């Protein structure tokens, strides 16, 4: 986008010594002049600052920040895209951000200013567009400085306006990727990581070689381990053997001693074991058997005497069976006997109570009569049925009476209503409503007819007027046709004239005159023909109009006739309608309205009369219905009355038959019935109870008399029946006890007899056993037996110990006694055995320790190998290495591309400059030639590496540094003007601000 900018107004809020200063600039050249320190250079700095930003703090000499008040200002500028207001005011931190507004005060994007400035860089603007005298010669340095130089040349490079930015961007991007001595750029980081990984990989050394070495070592360790295990086992075996021999040494010594002791004793191995104990036991058992036998004899003698005593005879024993029976009978009834007086008293009381209740009922029967009465369920059913039917009949009778009363009242109401209707009817006249409606219709029809008659009359008058007007429009006849004689006269006069002239002036003139005469006659004839044609047209038009008028007259006349006929017809209809309506045909509209109102009133009354008639008929029908209802109610009442009377008679008969008062109401009769039935039931129950009591009394009496009799016969003392019964019972109980005792004693005597025989056999067997024992011990007396038994015991203990020691030696050494003694001798005796043992005990732990070390080493080597066999670390490092290498390659490619792009740009620019000397240089040549008045012709940039400006006249060329200061300044001015011109033409004109340049 091309830019353009003109500064219209500058407002300084505060800058240098300016404060609240405002200056309006006109188009074209604006010259500001003033003495030294007036602020000309300050304004230059202000403009630069406003457009590109103020200098940063810390460079106070060029910052122009006032000591107090606002720092900044405003510019009103005109740009290609319209006017803009540029404001730049520093905040508290001294930063002065730019804000851009439209003249209306709307804030715009800050980039609008850059666009207006055609994206010119600050350096280029300050050095080319806004410079001071001091800076004029500094251009030389700037040409060499890359930034402005590039911008300068870019200004002339078509299609490469963004060249400086692109170069900067590429350099930045390449710098972000890699720097030779950098740390942070991405590629530097990747390379560093790669180096680290390489370091780690190198540290891991040659893994397979290590692996195979370690595998060899593992095999050797395995072999060593096997050897060590074998050695350890051997030591353990020897140690075990010798330890066992050592353990058996004590037993062997004791065994020798015991064998010596045994040699002095006789062989008592056949003596009965535990002989003395067995002897004592046998003696004791014999004594015990003897004592038991004598005790049983004694028991048998006392038992016989007791048995004789218990079996003695008595009177009670002889009658035992009879006594038991009568006592049983008495005992069974004893309870009943005691209850008899109470029961009788209670029965008496109940009888009295029933008789009282019966008397209270007020019946004409006693107890016996009551029991004879027939009060069964059938009779009671009959009574209940009668009561029901009676209640029903009475209810019907009441209903009929109520209905009758209601019918009477209703009838009275209807008759009153009828009387009222009649009274109203007599007040109304007798007129037919139909007739009145007919008259009303005729009246409205006559009104319509009158309106229509008036309309027809009006139409007729209008037609008559139109007829008369048509008749009055008489059109004059068209005039007569133009006469042809005038033409003939003209022609004749012409002929005469011509003839006269011919005679007078000769033939030639005559011929000429004839010619002119002919010229006159022709238009005359033509005019005549046209007027004749016009006249004929007028005559035809007139005739046509006359025909039309006659047709119109005929049409109007016939319409008038039709209207007259219609009027007459309407008059007739009107006369008929008015006579039907009962008014005169000439009656006025008001008269018609009055008649209409009277008819409406008469009609309303006639309709009321009709309504009353209908009402009366309805009331009469209602009255007939009520009369019928009253008759029916009366009939029903009579029927119910007859039934009530019949039922009452039936009830009375039923009650009298049961001794009930006959006047009782059915409900009362039913209640009394229930009471009587209840008392009769109680009476019957009482009779039954009395009979049961009498039976019980008789039975008790019999039992008592039999008991007393049996007691007396058994010799028991007499007395009250209860005491006698007790005595009988105790006598029987005593007898039973004695019998039981005798049975027990007899059984025990039998048992004692068996015991006596058993003990006798036992004693004999014990004595035999004792004899046999003494024989086995080889003794005749008990005392000698005891002595030998003690010797045998000692012999047994020694033998047992010898056996035990032999076993222990076998268990400890695994050898029999002689073999063990042999083995000890083989070792070299006891002392030597102990020495060897001590040696082996020292060797054993050392061997175990060695084996343990071998085990540990083997295990660690093995796990190390397993780790290497599935080595993730190395693989992971290699993956990372490859990853980083790939990344490095990619980044390096990108970096190389950027570097190549930069190199390419440089080459392209050089070539471009060489091939197409920039336009700026061409323009500079022109300006320089003009400034030096043709002394120098050309400014140019030599091809090649160094970017220096050279000037030449027609013959030779100089480097700028060889020119005088004045010429050099002219050269730089020319160059600036060239840039300004080129910039203005290609990208838009920017203001030129020069300070002290002249």
């Amino acid at each position, binding site marked *: 986008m091309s830019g353009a900018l003109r500064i219209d107004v500058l407002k300084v809020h505060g800058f240098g010594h300016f404060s609240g200063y405002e200056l309006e600039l006109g188009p074209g050249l604006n010259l500001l002049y003033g003495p030294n320190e007036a602020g000309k250079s300050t304004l230059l700095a202000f403009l630069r600052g406003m457009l590109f930003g103020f200098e940063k703090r810390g460079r106070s000499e060029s910052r122009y920040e006032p000591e107090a008040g606002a720092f900044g200002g405003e510019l009103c500028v005109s740009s290609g895209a319209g006017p803009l207001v540029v404001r730049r005011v520093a905040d508290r931190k001294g930063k002065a951000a730019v804000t851009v507004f439209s003249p209306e005060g709307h804030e715009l994007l800050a980039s609008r200013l850059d666009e207006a400035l055609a994206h010119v860089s600050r350096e280029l603007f300050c050095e080319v567009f806004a410079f001071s005298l001091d800076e004029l010669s500094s251009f030389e340095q700037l040409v060499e400085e890359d930034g402005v130089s590039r911008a300068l040349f870019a200004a002339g490079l078509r299609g490469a306006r963004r060249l400086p930015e692109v170069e900067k961007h590429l350099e930045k991007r390449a710098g972000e990727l890699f720097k030779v001595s950098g740390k942070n750029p991405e590629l530097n980081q990747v390379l560093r990581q790669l180096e680290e990984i390489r370091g780690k990989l190198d540290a891991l050394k040659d893994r397979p070689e290590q692996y195979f070495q370690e595998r060899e070592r593992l095999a050797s360790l395995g072999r060593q381990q096997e050897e060590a295990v074998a050695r350890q086992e051997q030591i353990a075996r020897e140690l075990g053997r010798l330890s066992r021999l050592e353990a058996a040494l004590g037993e062997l010594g004791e065994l020798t001693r015991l064998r010596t002791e045994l040699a002095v004793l006789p062989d008592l191995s056949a003596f009965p074991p535990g002989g003395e104990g067995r002897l004592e036991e046998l003696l004791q058992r014999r004594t015990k058997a003897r004592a038991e036998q004598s005790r049983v004899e004694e028991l048998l003698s006392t038992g016989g005497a007791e048995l004789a005593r218990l079996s003695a005879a008595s009177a009670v024993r002889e009658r035992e069976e009879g006594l038991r029976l009568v006592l049983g009978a008495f005992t069974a009834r004893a309870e009943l006997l005691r209850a008899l007086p109470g029961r009788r008293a209670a029965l008496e009381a109940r009888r009295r109570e029933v008789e009282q209740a019966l008397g209270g009922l007020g019946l004409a029967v006693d107890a016996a009569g009551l029991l004879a009465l027939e009060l069964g369920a059938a009779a009671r059913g009959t009574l209940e049925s009668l009561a029901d039917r009676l209640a029903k009949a009475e209810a019907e009778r009441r209903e009929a009476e109520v209905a009758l009363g209601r019918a009477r009242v209703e009838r009275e109401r209807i008759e009153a209503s009828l009387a009222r209707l009649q009274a109203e009817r007599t007040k109304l006249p007798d007129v037919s409503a139909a007739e009145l409606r007919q008259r009303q219709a005729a009246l409205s029809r006559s009104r319509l007819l009158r309106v229509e008659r008036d309309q027809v009359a009006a139409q007729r008058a209008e037609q008559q007027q139109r007829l008369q007007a048509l008749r009055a429009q008489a059109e004059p006849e068209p005039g007569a046709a133009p006469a042809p004689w005038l033409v003939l006269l003209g022609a004749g006069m012409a002929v005469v004239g011509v003839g006269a002239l011919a005679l007078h002036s000769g033939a030639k003139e005559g011929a000429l005159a004839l010619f002119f005469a002919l010229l006159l006659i022709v238009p005359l004839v033509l005019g005549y023909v046209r007027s004749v044609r016009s006249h004929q047209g007028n005559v035809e038009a007139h005739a046509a109009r006359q025909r039309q008028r006659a047709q119109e007259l005929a049409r109007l006349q016939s319409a008038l006739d039709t209207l007259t006929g219609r009027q007459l017809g309407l008059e007739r209809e009107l006369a008929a309608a008015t006579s039907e309506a009962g008014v005169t045909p000439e009656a006025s509209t008001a008269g018609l309205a009055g008649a209409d109102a009277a008819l409406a009133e008469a009609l309303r009354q006639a309709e009321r009369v009709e309504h009353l008639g209908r009402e009366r008929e309805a009331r009469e029908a209602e009255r007939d219905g009520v009369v019928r209802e009253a008759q029916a109610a009366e009939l029903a009442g009579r029927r119910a009355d007859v039934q009530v009377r019949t039922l009452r008679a039936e009830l009375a008969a039923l009650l009298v038959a049961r001794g009930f008062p006959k006047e009782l109401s059915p409900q009362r009769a039913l209640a009394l019935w229930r009471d009587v039935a209840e008392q009769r039931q109680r009476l019957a129950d009482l009779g039954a109870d009395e009979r049961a009591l009498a039976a019980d009394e008789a039975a008790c009496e019999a039992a008592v008399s039999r008991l007393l009799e049996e007691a007396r016969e058994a010799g028991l003392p007499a007395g009250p029946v209860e005491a006698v019964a007790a005595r009988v019972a105790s006598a029987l109980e005593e007898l039973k006890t004695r019998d039981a005792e005798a049975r027990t004693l007899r059984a025990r005597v039998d048992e004692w007899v068996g015991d006596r025989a058993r003990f006798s056999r036992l004693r004999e067997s014990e004595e035999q056993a004792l004899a046999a024992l003494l024989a086995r011990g080889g003794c005749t007396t008990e005392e000698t037996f005891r002595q030998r038994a003690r010797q045998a015991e000692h012999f047994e203990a020694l033998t047992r110990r010898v056996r035990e020691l032999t076993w222990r030696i076998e268990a400890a050494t695994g050898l029999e006694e002689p073999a063990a003694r042999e083995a000890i001798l083989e070792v070299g005796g006891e002392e030597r055995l102990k020495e060897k043992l001590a040696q082996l005990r020292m060797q054993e732990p050392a061997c175990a320790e060695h084996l343990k070390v071998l085990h540990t080493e083997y295990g660690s080597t093995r796990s190390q190998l397993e780790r290497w066999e599935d080595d993730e670390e*190395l693989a992971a490092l290699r*993956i990372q290495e490859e990853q980083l290498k790939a990344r490095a390659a990619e980044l390096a490619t990108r970096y*190389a*591309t950027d570097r190549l792009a930069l190199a390419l740009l440089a080459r392209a620019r050089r070539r471009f400059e060489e091939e197409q000397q920039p336009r700026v240089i061409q323009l500079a040549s022109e300006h320089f030639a003009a400034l030096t008045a043709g002394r120098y012709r050309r400014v140019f940039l030599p091809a090649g590496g160094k970017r220096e400006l050279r000037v030449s006249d027609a013959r030779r060329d100089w480097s700028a540094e060889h020119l005088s200061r004045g010429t050099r300044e002219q050269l730089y001015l020319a160059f600036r003007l060239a840039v300004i011109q080129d910039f203005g033409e290609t990208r838009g004109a920017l203001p030129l601000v020069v300070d002290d340049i002249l």
Partner: protein
Amino acid sequence: MRFKFVHAADLHLDTPFRGVPAGSGLTGAFQQATFRAFSRIVDVCLREHVAFLLLAGDLFDAKDRSVRARLALRRELDRLDVAGIQTFIVHGNHDPLSGDTGALGLPDSVKVFGADWEEVEVRREGRVLCRVQGISYPEAEMRENLSARFLRTGPDFTVGLLHANLGGVEGHANYAPCTVEELGARGLDYWALGHVHTRAEYTLAGGAVAVYPGNPQGRHVNEPGERGCVLVEVEEGRTWRRFVPVDRVRWHRLEVGLTGLGSLDGLVAAVTERVDASCPDELEGHAVRLTLTGRGPLHRELSRPEALGQLEADLREQLALRHPPVLLESLRDASLPELDLETVRLSGGFSGTLLAEAEALVADPEVLKALWAEDAELRTLGQRLRRLGVDVLEAPRPELVEQAGWQVVEQLHEEDAS
């Protein structure tokens, strides 16, 4: 007699994949891929009942120092040994004899050729089935034409097993250099070559063939497409060769044109479609480099800072969720601005001069070399990179000049476009 053998090379067991981030979910699949590819080669041998397996160098990479690689090699060769299938191995520049191969303890059926020429007879039922000749690299650098040491010794079918650069293929170090004619002159029937990672086959004089099977598993974006080994069937001295793919993860370089795409959503859809069409389901994973090409309005949008990176991250996340998963190695923008460079060139001005200058540089390698050498920073960076094993700046790259030219022109015109 009729027999079969399998020819594979450049296993590069356990070498890291380039462009696979260490922390990504696919790292495991990629790390195992070389092992699995080799395992599948062995499966092919077992299935086809081949007579022997040829491994033409670079079984692993000495610089990886991987123990796993050596153990895996032994494990797989043990399987062949059990099945009675012989294996012939020569070592190449990445696994020269000076390495640690001796300590591995390979089974008896494996023949590892030494640094001197040697020939081994393969016998079946007492008759010579085939002769296999081979030489291993004693050191990594082998500038001698080793093929010259090979020669036919008998009438039987003869195979030459060698790690060599036939015809000076670019992109691979020129080790054991040889030519088609030289190989043809040795009179062998089949040259089982290794070193060049792209599958290739050369017909030699007398009907013999020289075959590069390529590496069995692509490891970076410059090894795209299917990878595997060659199954060779021999009858009466004639061979029938069949390529058998064994790779489990596959690399792709996909281009997506911006032309006609108006929105990023449209671009994502186009990418998805392209990936769908190129990545078959039967593999365990894919790695993709996407390059945006053509001209279109999106070019400008994507040239915003971070825009491409953001799109790349989004796409990476989306593609990783597919089945099988797809790893986005990188998203590159090679699209052109809507600016018509031809018009710019023709319209002259500074941009025209610049483009002409770029063309001149591309056309004249000497000038470009001088320019490249002039830039001290570039030189320093190149040296530092070389020390770290990155040779990207070794030689001047004309395509970078071209690219730089477009970029600058585009930037110069940026304001006009805005």
